[in-house]
């Protein structure tokens, strides 16, 4: 599952208390997204990189993820430097590259990479169930937490159902084209998928009632914040505060 690609491991970062990871992650990401200073963003990028190192996550898989994210950033570079008002640095035909446009593109690139790395290093190193639990501990209503978790658990099942339906269509000689028949077929696939999901939801809710579900997922191993967790939280908050005010 996409959300849990990096969640298994025994590094110090993987072993941090999920509540601590979330309380550090949210302000750090907000600060990074809202800052317009290169020094702040670069520091956060560096910090995120350090966390990834500590989590022992530099791998082909990680680079591949980052490549995907940066493909989107590439589109930004194709437009923003040409469309911003400001000091021209280069002119090619009717297009003018401005210094402001270049700077802004650079800033957004750094921000994107910093936040992506942070997301992988902190929430990404936590199994989804623990993440859901941490959210609950941090005061998120249990209904929302359950929606988040159950969506995660069953999205895979629904995708599998969709794949099976596509296979069936193929086996029955359907090949998509731009015509009314294709549109109608896809519409009925969507409808079927909707009905099946609805029926499954009813069965899951029955199963939960049978199994004594009380509205909250029970946890076998409860979180226990250690001295390491407290230290990590304190150091992170100090750094974030300093970054906010310098």
């Amino acid at each position, binding site marked *: 599952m996409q959300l849990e690609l990096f969640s298994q491991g025994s590094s110090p970062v993987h072993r941090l208390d999920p509540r601590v990871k979330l309380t550090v992650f949210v302000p750090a990401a907000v600060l990074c997204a809202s800052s317009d200073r290169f020094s702040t963003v670069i520091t956060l990028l560096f910090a995120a990189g350090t966390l990834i190192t500590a989590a022992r996550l530099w791998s082909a898989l990680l680079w591949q993820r980052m490549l995907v994210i940066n493909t989107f950033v590439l589109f930004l570079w194709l437009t923003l430097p040409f469309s911003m008002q400001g000091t021209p640095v280069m002119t090619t035909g009717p297009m003018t590259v401005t210094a402001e446009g270049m700077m802004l593109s650079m800033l957004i690139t750094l921000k994107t990479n910093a936040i992506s790395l942070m997301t992988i290093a902190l929430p990404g190193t936590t*199994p989804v169930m623990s993440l859901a639990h941490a959210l609950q501990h941090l005061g998120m209503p249990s209904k929302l937490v359950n929606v988040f978790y159950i969506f995660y658990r069953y999205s895979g099942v629904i995708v599998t159902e969709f794949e099976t339906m596509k296979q069936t269509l193929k086996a029955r000689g359907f090949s998509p084209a731009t015509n009314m028949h294709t549109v109608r077929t896809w519409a009925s696939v969507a409808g079927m998928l909707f009905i099946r999901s609805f029926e499954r939801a009813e069965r899951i809710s029955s199963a*939960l*009632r049978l199994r004594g*579900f009380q509205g909250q997922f029970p946890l*076998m191993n*409860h979180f226990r914040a250690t001295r390491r967790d407290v230290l990590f939280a304190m150091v992170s908050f100090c750094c974030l505060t300093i970054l906010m005010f310098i």
Partner: protein
Amino acid sequence: MNCLEIHQLNFSYPGGRRVFRDLNLSVQSGEKAALTGANGAGKSTLFQLLTGLLKPQSGSIVAWGKTVTSEEEFRQMRRRTGLMFQDPDDQLICPSVEEDIAFTLLNHGMPPREVAGKVDEICRKLGLAALKTRVPFHLSWGQKQLVSLAGILVTEPQLLLLDEPTAGADDHLKSLMLDHLQQFTGTLLVSSHDSDFLERLCSSAYHISNGSVMR
């Protein structure tokens, strides 16, 4: 004593046709009963009525000598009952096999340490020890069925309802399930189309047709 009695039960789905008409059924404590019937006869519906997941239009359900009607009474009854769904994906909700097997016991408020012991024991019995930390969603169909069976047996139910446990199971899984179910000492009601499986497991049989049950 009868473990389960159904008197004059009538049920139809909202807007659907009548599924049960004056249905009567009684199952003795310790009885191993087979439930047969064509597709759409109402086997799954009966299991849901018995556990209070669906409410009949009229009629009564008596479990262990007590009439169950209110949601609270059904909740108490469900604590002593295990129902295995046909599709294990409906039932396996936790992110790891171990947590899923523990789910019901934890919901019932058993201390985690005690739960862990019971989970270990049932995993050893059903040969699931190697799968404990796996994600249930990624298991094979047969493994999923075994895990959902484990999650039920671990609660030590007095009444076990199995809805087509043999659908999609291969011979190996069937004989594995037989081995464990034959050791089960409570009351058992199994629906299946596999007559060989039923013959080897059950001592009595009920057949649903046209909305009522025949012995």
